[in-house]
């Protein structure tokens, strides 16, 4: 008699995506479920694969520069910075100090824009509608600065190998200062909405835990690693583009759950403002372009250069055969590598947590698939 009273719960395979609003693009996740419990996942990738690394081998160094913006398109400036630094390393030149300072300001502004898009969509996935409007409102201000600086809002192609193409526009410094003054109270505003919100805390605390050991095993970097208690940020560990001149903290937390990753990213936005404030006060005078020939032709050799992108370690491994085109240009994409830990993070959790964990990884499918 008792056997027939209850419904039998058997394993179920559920397909999520590639067209699903909370997979943040064209990610397909196959879920194996027992009732609401997740028994395992498998990611199916490649829907946005464009063969970026193959394209690189068939373009000149300068021609490939705009392509990198199309990988992590919400943080295009970071992508461009990494690529330019890699080629500059191969050429053994450095951008002039003025270019470096402007690069830092724009990259940090882009980090804020990227984190804002993450926060808005993450909150939307969890069910909070308001934050996304707030976040996009402030992100708009950042995009306006990009647009004024280089004419584009998303795929900016802001930097050139060796420095910058564009001088800053009239009133650039003041607009950055205004942005900083405006932005910090807005972060408080987001935190007021979310940080102590019972639903928010209930949905995020102890969800998708990834501890420091697992992070290292899976090569996970960026805010995910820092939320697990590892105080590691490439801007501090191996400074580039003059980051050693600025005073800022690396926010960390201990538990490595979704809530901690939220706190870390919120604090990172404040630290980015701190860096921008310092940088804008001391932009050195001087040229904005280093000594790079019209035709970029690095000597035979290879180099791996990486930066702290909003999502983690973004690296470029470039091999030169002495011609005008890269012989091989490998991109080390943080989103792709962080996504690999998804299975570890949600195995044993609930199906409702899947969207929380995908959101907290902050992936961009343009970068996962390249």
């Amino acid at each position, binding site marked *: 008699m008792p056997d027939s009273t209850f419904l039998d719960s058997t394993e179920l395979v559920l397909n999520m995506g590639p067209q699903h609003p909370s997979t943040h693009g064209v990610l397909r996740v196959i879920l194996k479920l027992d009732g609401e419990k997740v028994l395992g996942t498998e990611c199916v990738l490649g829907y946005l694969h464009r063969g970026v690394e193959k394209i690189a081998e068939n373009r000149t160094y300068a*021609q490939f520069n705009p392509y990198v913006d199309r990988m992590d398109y919400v943080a295009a400036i970071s992508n461009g910075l990494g690529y330019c630094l890699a080629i500059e390393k191969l050429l053994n030149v450095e951008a002039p100090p003025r270019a470096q300072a402007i690069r830092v300001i724009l990259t940090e502004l882009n980090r804020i824009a990227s984190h804002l898009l993450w926060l808005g969509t993450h909150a939307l996935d969890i069910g909070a509608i308001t934050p996304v409007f707030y976040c996009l409102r402030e992100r708009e201000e950042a995009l306006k600065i990009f647009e004024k600086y280089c004419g584009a809002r998303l795929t900016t192609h802001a930097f050139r190998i060796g420095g910058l193409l564009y001088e800053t526009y009239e009133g650039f410094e003041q607009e950055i200062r205004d942005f900083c003054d405006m932005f910090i109270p807005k972060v408080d505003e987001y935190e007021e909405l979310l940080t102590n919100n019972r639903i928010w805390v209930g949905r995020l605390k102890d969800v998708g835990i990834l501890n420091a050991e697992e992070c290292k095993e899976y090569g996970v970097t960026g805010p995910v690693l820092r939320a697990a208690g590892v105080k*590691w940020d490439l801007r501090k560990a191996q400074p580039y583009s003059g980051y050693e001149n600025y005073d800022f903290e690396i926010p960390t937390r201990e538990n490595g759950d979704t809530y901690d990753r939220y706190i870390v990213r919120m604090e990172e936005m404040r630290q980015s403002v701190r860096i921008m404030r310092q940088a804008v006060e001391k932009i050195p005078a001087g040229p904005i372009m280093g000594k790079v020939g019209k035709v970029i032709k690095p000597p*035979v050799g290879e180099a791996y250069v990486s930066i702290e992108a909003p999502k983690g370690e973004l690296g470029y491994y470039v091999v030169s055969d002495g011609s005008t085109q890269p012989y091989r240009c490998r991109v080390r994409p943080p989103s792709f590598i962080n996504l690999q830990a998804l299975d570890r993070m949600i195995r044993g959790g609930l199906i409702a947590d899947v969207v929380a964990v995908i959101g907290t990884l902050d992936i961009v499918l343009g970068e996962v698939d390249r």
Partner: protein
Amino acid sequence: MAEEEPPGGPPAPKPEGVEAAKVPAKPAADAVKPAPKPAAAPPPPKPPATMAATLWESDLATELKQRFGTQVRETSTYLGQNFVVVSPDSVISVLEHLKLEADFDYLVDLTLVDWPKRAERFDLIYILYSFARNERLRIKTPIADGYKPESAVSVHLTANWLEREAFDMFGVEFEGHPDMRRILLPDEWQGHPLRKDYGILQQDNRWVQENLGIESGQ
């Protein structure tokens, strides 16, 4: 290593050079190809430029040489970045040793470079980082086409997807990998696009016709 690879002489500098020349974006890279290192030697037959790497001397390099003997073929540094060339059979033990004894506990990236004219066609590259030392190290191992290197998943879990991508793009299969399938391209796709003999406009026409119902994706 790059020694004899990039042929500075007249024969096509890149395997798909002819193919690429059709693409409007590349006007005359071949025409403007005087040896990048004119200081080497003016006569044309032997100016193949090589990477100006120098010997990397450090405790770690000595230790690796002592422990692995001739399996460690070269320890070099270029632009301040250190790399070690290792025989393919012992690369996993080197990775394991570095992880356990020298704190290189983070596999940053794994990738391949194709040198089609060389006997050992591919360079398999592991980029390592040590949090404790704040140091990077590249492990390179030259492998022949068809050779199946041992999978690094037993040492670094990150290698799982990275090796799948390497297989997808270059057709190098990793022995002992738990799930050796393509990752970015469709499972039935023929060909490995990042090989140098795979043209930039090339595609698997059959797959495109069967699955997309169009004659060609071009």
